[in-house]
């Protein structure tokens, strides 16, 4: 099914924040909001859960480190043990630097890929929401007209104090 969306545009992040807060207080369903830069407090205003990306990074890092440490010990002590400068075959201290580097590599690359995957971003992807100035100087709040008694004019009233720049209705794209 396709839903009707109400798109309201503002010219300043502060307006957007206030609008979002009021909208949530009034119990409107907020689909998303679009801004040229990360507006602090907006997550709270929209009532979003904090992301768990950090955990992904953590586990990727740990696994990378363990894998590499094992690999180094395996190659130099098991696969082909060679006497190098009289050092023991398992010279663990010498294996630390590479282990660390690989840990960082896994964590870093992993979390970026994970981020792109979760947010479904990839090269050549078409932007989902098109409102040309959201990447420039416009702040957009998108409400879902999911209630039977949803009244656009009421919302206009509600947002008026926040220098509402523009208000329009759209249909969510089918696919």
């Amino acid at each position, binding site marked *: 099914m396709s839903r009707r969306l109400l798109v309201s545009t503002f010219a300043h992040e502060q307006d957007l924040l206030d609008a979002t807060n009021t909208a949530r207080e009034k119990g409107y369903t907020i689909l998303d909001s679009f*801004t040229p830069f*990360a507006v602090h407090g907006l997550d709270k205003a929209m009532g979003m859960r904090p992301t768990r*990306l950090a955990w992904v990074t953590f586990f990727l890092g740990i696994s990378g480190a363990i894998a590499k440490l094992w690999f180094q010990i395996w190659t*130099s002590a098991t696969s082909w043990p060679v006497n190098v400068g009289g050092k023991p075959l398992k010279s663990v201290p010498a294996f630390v630097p590479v282990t660390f*580097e690989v840990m960082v590599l896994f964590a*870093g690359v992993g979390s970026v890929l994970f981020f792109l995957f979760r947010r479904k971003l990839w090269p050549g992807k078409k932007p*989902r929401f098109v409102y*040309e100035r959201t990447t420039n100087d416009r702040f957009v709040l998108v409400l879902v007209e999911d209630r039977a008694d949803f009244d656009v004019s009421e919302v206009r009233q509600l947002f008026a104090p926040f220098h509402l720049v523009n208000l*329009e209705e759209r249909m969510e794209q089918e696919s």
Partner: protein
Amino acid sequence: MAEILSTLRPPLVLGNKSYADITDDVCSALERKSSTGWWTSFIIAVGVLILGAISVGYQLVTGVGVWGLNNTVGWAFDITNFVFWIGIGHAGTLISAILFLFRQRWRTSINRSAEAMTLFAVICAGIFPIIHTGRPWFAYWFIPYPNFRGPLWVNFRSPLVWDMFAIGCYLTISALFWYVGLLPDLATIRDRAKTMWRKKIFGFFSFGWDGSNRTWQRYEKLYLLLAGLATPLVVSVHTIVSWDFATSIIPGWHTTIFPPYFVAGAVFSGFAMVLMLMLIVRKVMNLEDYITLHHIENMTKVIIATSGMVGLAYITELFVAYYSGNPYERFAFINRALGPYGWAYWLMVTCNVVVPQFFWWKKIRRHVGMVFILSIFINVGMWFERFVIIMTSLTRDFLPGSWSGFTPTILDITTLLGSFGLFFTLFLLFARFLPMIAIGEVKGVAGVKRATPPGAVEKRKEVAHEPAPVG
């Protein structure tokens, strides 16, 4: 955002810009035709790059002997350049990552180009470990890949292997960090693009970014994480580079002070290089409103600090050498200061310890010309620091019978120049085609006043070019 608006601190962006102005200021630079200034500098850079490429090509065909090296001095310009460039790279990561973690908002207008600089510096650095080998076509043996030799792996005890991993990792992470930061801005350019191909290209590379706040939320987190990873990474990288020397046995190399000493030096030289670039950029790309004297001053302050650390390291080295009671170590340092390469040592001390002291004067800190010249001195000094460390220790180590000297050949010099050519070529291309300033971040700290035009009028104006409702 209040603290930024407060009058106690100078504003980070001058000429109270609107969001649109910021976008225009940054992006217009990319949409204009390239200035003659850009063209001339680009042609020079490419010329030097070609010179370097030719000399490297000649060296690959003829042998490493075309450099001034000998049996006693196995490394000279090659590794000096390597360490120098790696060092340069560090400032970028420091600005973008460490300053980010410390919530130093002033970084926003320089971090983009600083990161770019890191990337290009690391590329320049990465070339030398490969071409300095006798048989570069076997350089891939550094990589532990499955093979038909038994299988025969690599020596994970060798700092050179650590290097390979460190640089590889550093390059990747910096690139990611840089690109992730670039994403929203690419979208901005895409959205304001007029021409077809601009739309397409930036459309492709902006990964369909639409400024959704749900993305922004994770993006912020990701950025924070990357910053958190890059910070220890940058320290580890130069630590490992310093271990190339510190884990060896040669007097003057075999010392525990190297890691901190090298990292400080790296940041030191890196900031000098950033300053040089920024001073050029803000002039050429007229971004004076974004890269303000305030920024420059901050960087000079970092330089004073790091120069102090480097100076301290020099003194500590001398003291430890004397205190160690190890005759070879002791001589290594006497020789460093008074031996055949004493001139280089004193040049280094002057450039790295004496010259930066000028930055104690606010006048000089805020005098663009002076700052530019001094930072050049610092870069020269830091190149010589590496040269001195390598040269003095290698030329005269344990057995006097094996002592020797080093004189660079033409190709040593052209190769060094070539690396600069490569660096500036890449940087100029970057300046030409990508936003020099993190638009999104700057908007975040620009402190734009809440606009209060009568909504209706505003709206009517809007409607004019409002896209037809979709769906």
